[in-house]
């Protein structure tokens, strides 16, 4: 197991190590040993010490109950499909709105100044509010206007709240990408006679979007988690379903089940985003 980064000495095979290589190999072996022993020690301490806590038996019964877990897990998985569906229709709309707002902030014609101003106010407001607050205000507020079915659905207005908040973040990320494209690219495009619009569309934006894919991936991982907040205004998605099971069975294990399901999606996605980010960083250095 490669606990620490090991860089192999260039070319020299085993048995033909120089004195320095042998010394460095010894250092590496020692580091790996120390890391392994220390990790094992911490794990052992956790496994031994936690069950010694006075409330452990009660916690084990109500949070890590295997029977309840097995009983509720399929239902939770079913409910999670709703989270995935909400995510699936929000994500493309967020991407579109985010892009539109980012472009609006970059417009330089005086006539379009109101558009630019609106974009600035929009990103400031929605990045400045807690997501749950926006969901409450829009999710309860708009249907309160007395709209007829199906226009009073919490799915519509809850989704809109998520879209508005997340598009503000995505817009800022895209804008930072646009600004990261060097001025010399715009100069080259201008010198060829390309219009500002074509320069943005064919030269700046393709480079900017590529650069901010990892950052946006992180935002979409966060979105997948925040979908659970819609449960506060009605939809029975996984978090609400876990709550229902909790009340039925007087046991908290369904929440742990829900956590497991979220992690199964978000950890691989986060790792992948980090991988892309590192690749991007290497490509640019």
């Amino acid at each position: 197991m490669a606990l620490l980064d090991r860089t192999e000495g260039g070319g020299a095979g085993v048995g033909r190590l120089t004195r320095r290589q042998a010394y460095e190999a010894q250092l590496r072996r020692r580091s790996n040993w120390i890391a392994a022993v220390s990790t094992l020690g911490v794990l052992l301490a956790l496994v031994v010490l936690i069950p010694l806590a006075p409330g452990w038996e009660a916690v084990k019964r109500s949070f890590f109950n295997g029977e309840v877990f097995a009983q509720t897990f399929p239902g939770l998985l079913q409910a999670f499909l709703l989270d995935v569906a909400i995510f699936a229709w929000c994500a493309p709309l967020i991407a579109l709105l985010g892009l539109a707002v980012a472009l609006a902030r970059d417009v330089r014609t005086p006539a379009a100044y109101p558009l630019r101003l609106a974009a600035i106010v929009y990103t400031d407001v929605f990045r400045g509010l807690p997501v749950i607050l926006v969901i409450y205000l829009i999710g309860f507020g708009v249907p309160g206007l007395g709209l007829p079915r199906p226009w009073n659905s919490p799915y519509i207005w809850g989704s809109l709240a998520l879209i508005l908040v997340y598009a503000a973040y995505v817009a800022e990320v895209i804008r930072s990408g646009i600004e990261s494209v060097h001025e010399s690219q715009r100069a080259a495009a201008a010198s060829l006679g390309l219009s500002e619009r074509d320069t943005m569309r064919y030269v700046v934006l393709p480079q900017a979007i590529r650069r901010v894919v990892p950052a946006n991936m992180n935002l979409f991982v966060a979105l997948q988690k925040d979908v659970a907040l819609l449960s506060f205004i009605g939809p029975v998605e996984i978090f609400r379903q876990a709550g229902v099971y909790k009340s039925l069975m007087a046991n908290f294990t369904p929440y742990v089940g829900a956590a497991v399901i979220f992690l199964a999606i978000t950890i691989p996605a986060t790792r992948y985003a980090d991988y892309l980010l590192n690749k991007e960083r290497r490509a640019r250095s």
Partner: protein
Amino acid sequence: MSLLELRGVEKAFGDTVVLRGIDLSVGRGEMVCLIGASGSGKSTLLRCMNLLEPIDDGEILLDGTDIAEPGLDPQPVRERIGMVFQSYNLFPHMDAAENVMLAPRRVKGLRREVLLPRVEALFERFGLTDRIHAYPDQLSGGQQQRVAIVRALAMEPEIMLFDEITSALDPELVGEVLDVLRDLRQQGMTMVLATHEMGFARELADKVCFLDAGAILEDGTPEEVFGAPQEARTQAFLRRVL
């Protein structure tokens, strides 16, 4: 009549005056070399010529029309003036052929099928045939710069501006780029170069201008400027670089 004529061009960035009353005329088919120390205003002068930088005062006449007239749309002017940069500035997300075809497609509305044979011919002319679908990061500096020249040529400009296009290249790659300029010179392209390649300027330029602190201190034929410089500053500069 000269193809490009500058009269009393002034330019400042904030409080820093970069160009102080530049007068310069470039005849059709002529090659003019701008020499001078870094910061003397060569690059800014070139960027003013195709309106990448707005000038503060003066006139820039292209074929007799003042292109620096306030309120004039710079786009049609830039189509007629090609420019090649020190750092190549190829578009990294497009292959060489797409780099070259973008402007003719979008600005002139030409179709890919029409352009491709023309682009292939240009790539062949400059020894790039096997690199036509390579991306910029797969090309050497010399190849990138040749693609950048092809990209500017594809717009069929009346005049080409070159901003120290060999300064970022490894020494062994300079020759292949200078060969391209020689080729263009023979074809009768009108060219203005900011350059540190004194040997090249001496060999091929019709006119050499020595810039110092934003003004053309001395100009003339290569024989005059390199052979018998009149100004003390010119003499000092040439002693340092030759």
